[in-house]
């Protein structure tokens, strides 16, 4: 089929986009090596694992799942999960949603897009939520909103700080307005926790967007971010389509937000536990408590 503008010179990169052929990666067994999406260099999976899943060549932070994150920051065997069993139902009868939920559960080995619980960092007890990107891109439906609300309510009751890792595509559209309402609900829970003088730290990871950015992700007392994480209200593709312009390089990345004054610090994975410990100490969060972080 001949397209109309076949011989037209593209005005900008956006127009030319469909003409650029995608480079295909050489075929290498995926379990042995991984190619870095940033510098394209190959690294052994074992090397990546011992390096916090950060590219040893360029420092690119690979996306990792929630349980890997927990292992990196929580003292060994201190994590006690809460409400693991909660899973979503298709209350609006949205077409295709049941299948999507099923696939997401198989793909992520989780019941929903966030894990909550308590654990210890440097022997200091904290409440935690860690979002899971492989479950429908960490989108927020009623269960994600409920679990985040529950952990803030638990932390308020037990006078604990909350540490939250965000990664999300925003509100889950298959749950309609009930998903949007989670933004208000979680914000209310954060506010109550905050009004009681308790500490809330967020670590924004790649990508944190939409309704999550516009609610609890940006409500932390201290907001940290992983290097180069995309942090946005409207994603770059939506903005390009709205304003019909190519976006500047680095736009909406963690470094850009730091420069504009919207995050407190950028902390690479290798020093996150150290930084969290330092911040907990500076806020007088006591060591010890009960033996294994149990409820």
């Amino acid at each position, binding site marked *: 089929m001949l397209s109309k503008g076949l011989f037209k010179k593209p005005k900008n990169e956006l127009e030319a986009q469909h003409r650029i052929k995608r480079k295909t990666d050489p075929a290498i067994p995926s379990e042995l090596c991984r190619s870095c999406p940033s510098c394209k260099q190959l690294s052994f999976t074992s090397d990546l694992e011992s390096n916090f899943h950060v590219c040893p060549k360029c420092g690119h932070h690979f996306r990792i799942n929630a349980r890997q994150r927990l292992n990196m920051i929580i003292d060994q065997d201190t994590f006690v999960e809460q*409400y693991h069993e*909660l*899973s979503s*139902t298709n209350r*609006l009868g*949205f*077409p*295709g949603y049941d299948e999507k939920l099923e696939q997401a559960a198989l793909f992520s080995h989780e019941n929903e897009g966030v894990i909550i619980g308590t654990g210890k960092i440097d022997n200091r007890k904290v409440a935690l939520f860690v979002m899971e990107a492989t479950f429908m891109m960490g989108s927020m*439906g*009623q*269960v994600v*909103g*409920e679990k985040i*609300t*529950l952990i803030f309510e638990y932390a308020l009751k037990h006078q604990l700080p909350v540490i939250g890792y965000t990664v999300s595509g925003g*509100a889950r*559209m298959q*749950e*309609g*307005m*009930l*998903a*949007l*309402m*989670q*933004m*208000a*609900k979680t*914000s*209310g829970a*954060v*506010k*109550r926790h*905050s*009004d009681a003088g308790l500490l809330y730290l967020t670590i924004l990871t790649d990508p944190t967007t*939409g*309704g999550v*950015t*516009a*609610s*609890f*992700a*940006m*409500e932390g007392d201290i907001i940290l971010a992983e290097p180069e994480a995309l*942090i*946005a*209200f*409207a994603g770059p593709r*939506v*903005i390009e389509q*709205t*304003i019909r*312009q190519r*976006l*500047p390089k680095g*736009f*909406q990345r963690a470094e850009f937000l730091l420069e*504009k004054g*919207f995050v407190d610090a950028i902390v690479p994975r290798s020093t996150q536990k150290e930084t969290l410990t330092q911040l907990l100490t500076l806020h007088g969060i006591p060591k010890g408590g009960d033996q294994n972080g149990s409820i």
Partner: protein
Amino acid sequence: MEAYKRVALARKKTRPTGQDFIDNLFTDFIELHGDRCFGDDPAVICGLGHLMDMPVTVIAQERGQNTKSRVKRNFGSAHPEGYRKALRQMKLAEKFNRPIVCLIDTSGAFCGIGAEERGQGLAIANNLMEMMSLKVPILSVVIGEGGSGGALALGVADEVWMLENAIYSVISPEGCASILWKDASKTKDAANCLKLTAHDLLELQVIDKIISENHRDFKNVYRELKIGLYKCFQKNQALDRDQLINNRYQRFRKYGAIESMTK
């Protein structure tokens, strides 16, 4: 009526806008500009007026009434300074113990370079958090289009009402069709699936009341709103402040609460 027909009615160019509602609901209205930080956002009108004999703070999203004013108002899509202006006025309302009326009509918070650079996400998040604990009665009415987070940023209230032909949605039906089905022609199906009409949302308890419309004449709408707002504010002003805030928290706490989920 089919959901997509409501979408078309909610967006109709001749539909009364925020300014019309201000002119018809309040007397002695005075507009107050600016967020005291960056600028004044014409997509949001803030000010004070009398609702009958009651002084109130009014916050209205305004999409513009003709081509020129639509461009000036950015078609009702606010930048962060619009939300910050609204929050500034809400804080003043709290200081002087005035009830707050929010009139929602936007296709969404603006998606652009400036909006992102100035923290659109943070501005909305701050409104959600602060509105949750404002110690004065708040009532939000969706008068046209309630577009996602940009609408919710004025929608954390003691009660949320909708006009009969207004819509309130997590995403536009167009956006939903193009993301989920990669097919813009499925917009009508998307509108149905999203449950965005006033009747659907009353059933889901997302809203508390529908104001019926005769879309040729809004006189009845204004009258019903005026009396309804007044009564609701009277009732809520009489409440103990902690009770008022707790009621608001519980109103939003119920969505997807653990006891309502079964599996």
